[in-house]
C-alpha cells in the first residue's frame, strides 16, 4: 500500500511538472472554444453569398409588395415571357442572376404550389436555404389569397410562430436544453476517456520500453503499480478539469470586460444559444447532474484505463499500440454517436439497453440523464460499470507482470493460458 502511494505520487507530480500538461491544459479549452465560436463568428461577421433570383411570370399571382424579399442576401427581378427567353437571359455572360423561378409550374386552382427553381450553377446550401425560406413565405401568402383572404391579412398571417417550451417543474430542462447539456457533457466525456486512457497506455509503454518495470516489479506488487499509475493519471485529469473550471470562472468576467462591444454584438446576435446555456444553469438541477456525471466519468476512465493498460502490456511496439488503441476508441465513438441519437429519443428500449452496456454507458447514460431517468436504472448502470472497471483492472494486473516483460513478441493465447493457469 505504501508503494501504491509512491507510484501515485510520482505519476501525478512528474506529469504535473511536465510542460505538456500545461500546454494541453491551456490549448484544449481554447480549441473547444474555437470549435464552437468559429461557426458563430463566421455567421455573425462572415460575408454571406448574395443570391439574385429571376421570377418568371410571377405577376399573374403576386403583386410587387409581395415579392420583396426579407433577407438582405436575396434580391429578385421579374420577367414575363417564355421559359426559353428567361433561360437565355440567365445564361447571358454578364448576367448576375443565380437562379430562375418558374411560376408557370404552379397551379393554385388545383392546389399545386410546387414551384420549379432552375439554377445557373450549383447553389450553395446557404443560398438554397435562403431561396426555400423566401419561396415558402411567398407561396404561403398566395395560398391564403387563394382562400379569398385579403392581401394585407395574408401578409400579416404569414409570420412564423415560435413556441416557448418550459417545464412544469423548474428543475426539469426542456428538450432543447437537455440536448445542449447532453451534447456538451458527451463531448467532454468523449475527450477525457480517450485522452486519459491513452495517457495510461503511454505511461506503461514508457516503463516497458526503458525496462524500468523490471526494477519496479522487484519492489512493488503489480496491482499497486497499476492502480497507483491509473489513479495518478486520473487525479491529473481531475486537476485539469478543476483548472478549466477555475479558468472559466475567472475568464468570463475578464473577457467580457475586455471585449465588451464584441461580446454584446455576439450576445445580441446569438441570443438563442446564450439563453439556452443560461436556462440550463438556472433550470437543470446541476447539484444532481454533476455528481452523477463525475461518477460515470471516473468509472469510465478507470474502465478505459484498464483497457488501454491491457493493450499497452500486450504489444511491444508503437505501431501496434496505435493500431490497437484505434480499436479501443471505437466503443467511445459508438457511444458518442449513440448519445447524439439518444438525446432525440432518450427513453426508447435501445436507449435504455445501451445505457447499461459498460463501454458506452458513460456516454449514453449521461445523454439520458437530463431527460429524466429512473434512479434504479442509474444505479444499475453504475454497478455494471463499476464491476466492469474492476474486472478490467484485474485482468490488466494479471497480465501486467508477464505482458510487460515480453520484448519483441506480442501477448498471445499461449501466454494468457499460462497467466491464468499459473504464472
Amino acid at each position, binding site marked *: 500500500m505504501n*508503494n501504491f502511494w*509512491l507510484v501515485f505520487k510520482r505519476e501525478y507530480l512528474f506529469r504535473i511538472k511536465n510542460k505538456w500538461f500545461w500546454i494541453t491544459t491551456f490549448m484544449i479549452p481554447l480549441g473547444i472554444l474555437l470549435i464552437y465560436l468559429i461557426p458563430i463568428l463566421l455567421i455573425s461577421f462572415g460575408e454571406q453569398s448574395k443570391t439574385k433570383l429571376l421570377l418568371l411570370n410571377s405577376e399573374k399571382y403576386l403583386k410587387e409588395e409581395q415579392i420583396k424579399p426579407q433577407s438582405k442576401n436575396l434580391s429578385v427581378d421579374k420577367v414575363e415571357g417564355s421559359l426559353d427567353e428567361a433561360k437565355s437571359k440567365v445564361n447571358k455572360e454578364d448576367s448576375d442572376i443565380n437562379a430562375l423561378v418558374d411560376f408557370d409550374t404552379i397551379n393554385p386552382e388545383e392546389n399545386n404550389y410546387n414551384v420549379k427553381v432552375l439554377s445557373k450553377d450549383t447553389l450553395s446550401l446557404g443560398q438554397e436555404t435562403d431561396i426555400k425560406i423566401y419561396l415558402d413565405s411567398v407561396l404561403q401568402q398566395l395560398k391564403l389569397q387563394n382562400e379569398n383572404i385579403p392581401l394585407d391579412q395574408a401578409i400579416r398571417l404569414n409570420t412564423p410562430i415560435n413556441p416557448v417550451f418550459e417545464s412544469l417543474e423548474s428543475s426539469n430542462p426542456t428538450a432543447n436544453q437537455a440536448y445542449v447539456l447532453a451534447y456538451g457533457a458527451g463531448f467532454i466525456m468523449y475527450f477525457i476517456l480517450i485522452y486519459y486512457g491513452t495517457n495510461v497506455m503511454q505511461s506503461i509503454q514508457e516503463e516497458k520500453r*526503458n525496462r*524500468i518495470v*523490471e526494477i519496479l516489479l522487484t*519492489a*512493488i506488487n503489480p496491482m499497486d503499480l497499476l492502480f497507483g499509475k491509473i489513479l495518478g493519471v486520473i487525479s491529473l485529469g481531475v486537476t485539469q478539469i478543476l483548472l478549466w473550471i477555475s479558468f472559466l470562472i475567472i475568464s468570463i468576467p475578464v473577457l467580457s470586460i475586455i471585449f465588451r462591444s464584441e461580446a454584446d454584438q455576439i450576445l445580441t446576435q446569438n441570443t438563442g444559444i446564450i439563453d439556452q446555456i443560461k436556462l440550463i444553469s438556472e433550470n437543470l438541477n446541476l447539484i444532481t447532474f454533476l455528481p452523477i456525471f463525475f461518477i460515470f466519468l471516473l468509472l469510465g476512465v478507470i474502465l478505459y484505463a484498464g483497457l488501454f493498460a491491457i493493450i499497452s502490456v500486450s504489444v511491444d511496439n508503437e505501431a501496434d499500440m496505435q493500431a490497437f488503441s484505434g480499436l479501443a476508441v471505437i466503443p467511445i465513438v459508438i457511444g458518442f454517436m449513440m448519445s447524439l441519437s439518444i438525446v432525440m429519443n432518450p427513453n426508447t428500449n435501445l436507449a435504455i439497453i445501451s445505457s447499461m452496456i459498460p463501454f458506452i454507458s458513460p456516454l449514453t447514460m449521461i445523454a439520458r440523464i437530463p431527460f429524466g431517468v429512473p434512479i434504479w436504472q442509474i444505479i444499475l448502470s453504475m454497478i455494471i460499470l463499476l464491476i466492469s472497471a474492476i474486472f478490467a483492472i484485474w485482468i490488466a494486473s494479471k497480465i501486467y507482470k508477464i505482458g510487460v*516483460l515480453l520484448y519483441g513478441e506480442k501477448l498471445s493465447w499461449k*501466454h494468457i*493460458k499460462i497467466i491464468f493457469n499459473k504464472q
Partner: protein
Amino acid sequence: MLKIINLSKNFGENKVLDNINFEVPEGTIFGLLGPNGAGKTTLLRIINRIYLANEGRILWKDIKISDEFIAKNTAYLPEERGLYPKMTVIDNIKYFAQIRGLKNDKNLDKKIREFMEDLSISDKNNVQLQKLSKGMQQKIQIIASLLHNPDLIMLDEPFSGLDPINSQKLKFILKDLAKKGKTVVFSSHRMEQVEELCQEIALINKGKVVLNGKVDQIKEKYKESVYYIKTKQNIDNIDINIKILEKLDNSIKFKLLENQDLNQTLRYFFDEYQILEFREIFPSIEEIFVKVVNKK
C-alpha cells in the same frame, strides 16, 4: 549463501531453464555465463521473483526467498537502464530508494550525497537523466540500487555498452562491494571479463548448467598440458616429440602428447637452451565453454 536448487522454468511448451543447481557463497562475485538466449536473464528474473519458477527452490541463508526479502535486501540492474529518462538524477535516485523502503530514512539525502561524491557525479543532481552518457547513467542506477544497503546484488550484462574506462570503474565498484561482504551475481556473455572478476561461475547453455565451480578449479580440471617456454637463444630445431601450438624466435607454446613425461621434455629444453621463463598455460573460460558445449 544463495542456493539455486532444481530450478526449472517453462514458457508454454518451451523449457527455458532445466534443473538448474548452483550455490553462490556470501561475499563473492559470481559470474553467470552463457551465450545470448541461454536463459541467464530469465534465471535472474526468477531469483528476483519477477517470474515464478515451475519447479525448484531458491534459498538465501537456507531460507526460501520471499517478495519482501527481494524488495528489502536485493538490488537488481537489468541489462537496459531501468530509470526514467525524463526525470532528474536526484528524483530518479530518491524514487527508487523510496520504493525499496527508504521512504522515512532521515539520512537519505546524506547517503545520496556520499554515494554521488564517491562516484564523482555530485554536480549532476538536477540534470535530466537522458542528457547523461550511458556510463554516467549506469553510475546513477548503481546508486539507486545500492542505497538501501542490499546483501545480494544482481546485474544483468552490466558491461554491455560500456567503454573500457567505465568498465574498469564498474569492476572496481563490484570488487569493493564484495570486499564489504556483499554477494554479487552478474550475467555476461563476454567470458574474458568474468575471469578477472569472479571467484566462482556457472556456465549456462540452452537452459542447462554445463559447468559450475571455482574459476581456478575449473581451469585446473580442464587444463590440457599446454606449456610456455621462453629462451635466451633462438629456438631452432626441436628434437623431441611434442605438439607445437605456437613458435616464435625465442618462445614456444606446446602441448604434451598423451602419456608424455613433462620432466623429460623440460630436461631437453634445459639442456639445449638457457630458459628465461616457463609456465603452464591454462585454458580460458571461453575455450573451456566451447569444449564442454561441443562435447555435450
